[in-house]
């Protein structure tokens, strides 16, 4: 990392001043703890992307293909013709600086190249040099620079330090969305085989096996069986879900993270219990066993290839509509991309809750309902017997996931549900929730282990707001509707705000859900004793 300091340098004074060179002439330093490992040849080959080879971003030689500049420039030209957002956002920024301090990575790191405007300028400078007249003529004076290996490395480093959370785009007077630029940046990286294994691994697994974790069909069922055992232990009820069942009314798709890693598994138990209690005619699929879409963090085409399985499976099984589980980027994709890529889903029917009869008009084209919308409707219509006091040991706050917040506007539904199943609910400060929510710091496929420093920096603004409500109200549980949040915030809380757990909304629902014929519950889904455990039965 940085140079060694002599003791007297430290003790005398700390007047370290960074080199005051302008950003274009400050070459990138690839620092450990800040980047994810390069994608392996195996993963790249599985999906047929170019330049498959094993490589290490920490080494000097990135094993780039011949004429990589040409490939990148062609890639840019191609995308300028395809995406108005890209074209426009290359041209219209006035560098007013409104976005500068809105990025969680900038707030947490202070690295100027984490200012959204500068992250975009990394690309714009090259765009100007090769695609605009002033840039061709005036060069650096017009803010243009050549595309060389240092620039490429800088792109790679910083486009994998953006979680595509879109917070900057809320504040931009022209709606410039850095996520659009990062998405394009990563697509260009893909042309050279410069992806990260943390996304390419799951992409390859999802492509072949149907989910990011690479769970094979029998592993999915046995995983869920484990949960069923736990549910039976806690409630005395044997839940019996079905898999790949033709003729079911509903296909249920959720991020595979929920099947595997705690605390997502508790959320998954929540879905299972809820559906069982409702007697819902639904099925899981092992083929479309992934709601999330790490393809979205590599290229639009890859995202489409992975997403195609959901409609294909719905069609094969002959279901009427689809319910989707709690996940952030999954829902941005479902809301803003799926129908465009793989629709129209004219073989499905407009979703109608079999319990309440509510028709989900807002999903009449995609035919895919968010489970929290579905549950909110149930609760509003009084169809669930709930005992919120079972969550009395929890003081809950809600973290809006970037993608459902700024790519959907999913604010009231989860709050309505959370408040219905918990007696103690506290909001975080206004500037840190809803459309101004802060990213968990690990979104867009950056939740690897090797970039933990980066993730903790990026997680600081969110954690800081949680800390505030922890200290003020004693909040001890952070609810959210995102699988990456459940994994990443657990770690972030552990570092920044010890004592705060992380939960999906449906774990809370299941805790409060009074099921027909259940035995008196003594523990919550995590096996923690309930507040009034041992007392009289609530049933």
């Amino acid at each position, binding site marked *: *990392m*940085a140079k*060694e*300091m002599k003791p007297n340098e*430290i*003790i*005398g*004074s*700390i*007047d*370290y*001043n*960074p080199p*005051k060179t302008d950003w274009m002439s400050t070459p990138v330093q690839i*620092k450990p*703890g800040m980047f994810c490992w390069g994608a392996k040849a195996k993963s790249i080959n599985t999906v047929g992307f170019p330049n498959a080879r094993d490589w290490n971003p920490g080494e000097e030689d990135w094993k780039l293909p011949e004429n990589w500049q040409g490939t990148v420039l062609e890639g840019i030209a191609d995308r300028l013709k395809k995406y108005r957002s890209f074209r426009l956002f290359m041209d219209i920024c006035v560098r007013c600086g409104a976005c*500068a*301090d809105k990025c969680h990575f*900038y*707030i*947490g*790191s*202070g*690295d*100027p190249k984490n200012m959204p405007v500068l992250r975009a300028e990394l690309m714009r400078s090259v765009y100007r040099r090769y695609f605009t007249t002033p840039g061709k003529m005036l060069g650096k004076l017009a803010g243009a620079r050549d595309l060389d290996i240092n620039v490429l490395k800088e792109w790679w480093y910083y486009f994998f330090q953006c979680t595509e959370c879109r917070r900057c785009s809320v504040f931009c007077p022209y709606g410039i969305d850095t996520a659009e630029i990062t998405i394009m940046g990563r697509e260009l990286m893909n042309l050279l085989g410069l992806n990260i294994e943390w996304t390419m691994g799951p992409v390859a697994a999802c492509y072949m096996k149907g989910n990011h974790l690479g769970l094979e069909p029998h*592993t999915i069922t*046995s*995983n869920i069986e*484990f949960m069923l055992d736990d549910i039976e232990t806690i409630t005395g009820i044997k839940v019996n879900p079905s898999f790949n069942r033709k003729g079911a009314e509903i296909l249920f798709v959720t991020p595979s993270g929920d*099947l*595997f*890693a*705690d605390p997502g*598994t508790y959320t998954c138990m929540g879905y299972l219990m809820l559906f069982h209690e409702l007697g819902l005619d639904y099925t899981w699929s092992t083929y479309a066993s992934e709601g999330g879409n790490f393809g979205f963090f590599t290229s639009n085409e890859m995202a489409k290839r992975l997403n195609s399985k959901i409609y294909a499976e719905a069609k094969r099984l002959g279901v009427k509509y689809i319910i989707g589980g709690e996940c952030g980027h999954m829902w941005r994709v479902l809301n803003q991309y799926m129908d465009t890529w793989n629709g129209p889903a004219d073989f499905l029917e407009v979703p109608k809750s079999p319990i309440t009869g509510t028709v989900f008009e807002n999903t009449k084209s995609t035919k895919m309902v968010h489970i929290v919308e579905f549950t909110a409707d149930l609760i509003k219509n009084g169809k669930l017997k709930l005992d919120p006091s079972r969550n009395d040991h929890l003081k809950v706050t809600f973290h809006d996931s970037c993608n459902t917040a700024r790519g959907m506007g999913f604010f009231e539904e989860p709050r309505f549900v959370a408040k219905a199943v918990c007696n103690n609910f506290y909001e975080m*400060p206004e*500037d*840190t929730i809803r459309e101004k929510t802060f990213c968990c710091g690990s979104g867009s496929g950056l939740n690897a*282990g*090797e970039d*933990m*420093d980066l993730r*903790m*920096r990026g997680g*600081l*603004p969110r954690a*800081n*707001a949680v800390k*505030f409500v922890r200290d003020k109200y004693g909040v001890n549980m952070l609810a959210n509707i995102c699988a990456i949040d459940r*994994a990443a915030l*657990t*770690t972030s809380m*552990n*570092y*920044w705000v010890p004592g705060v757990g992380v939960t999906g909304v449906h774990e809370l629902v299941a805790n409060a859900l009074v099921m027909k014929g259940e035995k008196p519950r003594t523990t919550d889904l995590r096996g923690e004793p309930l507040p009034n455990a041992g007392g009289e039965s609530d049933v």
Partner: protein
Amino acid sequence: MNVSLKDLLSEKKPDILNIWFDEIIDTYPADTSLFLKKQKNRFHNPVGHAILHGTGEIFDKLLEGYASGRGTGAEEIAPFLDNIIRVRAVQDFTASRAVGFVFALKKAVRSALESSVRESGDIRAGLEKFDSMVDGLALAAFDIYMQCREKIYALRAEEIEKRTFRLLQQANLICEVDEEKKDLDRGE
């Protein structure tokens, strides 16, 4: 004699804290340091807030320790020190720079008390004691820094563990059906 330095430190506290704060902030890139100073909203600027509050609390505790003769009181100070170091432990700092800001307090005190230090031998003697308390603080800071870094590595390990826990469960299941089943059966 110590009393007079104590009074002086209390009196000059705002100056000392200002200088100390600036010294710490100056360890960040120039364009960032002003943001850290100017942005007063604690949610928009958690780093600046942690430093601003942390330094104030640390100084108060040190002063208490000095007045009562108890010394640094590292345990009491630890939470406030933690707030600052936890942030710096994941930023672009070497270990020495991450905790070195503690020593800047010495400099801050000296520049704030400049004239008095020159004039009074008593103050100088008192300062020596105060300095050694700051040294104690630095050692505590280093401990916290190490805890934070260890935590980072522990978290990496924990994540892997969480991700593989169900897999291990699964593996046991597979073992049961395989030839090892007999062994397990015998064992039970």
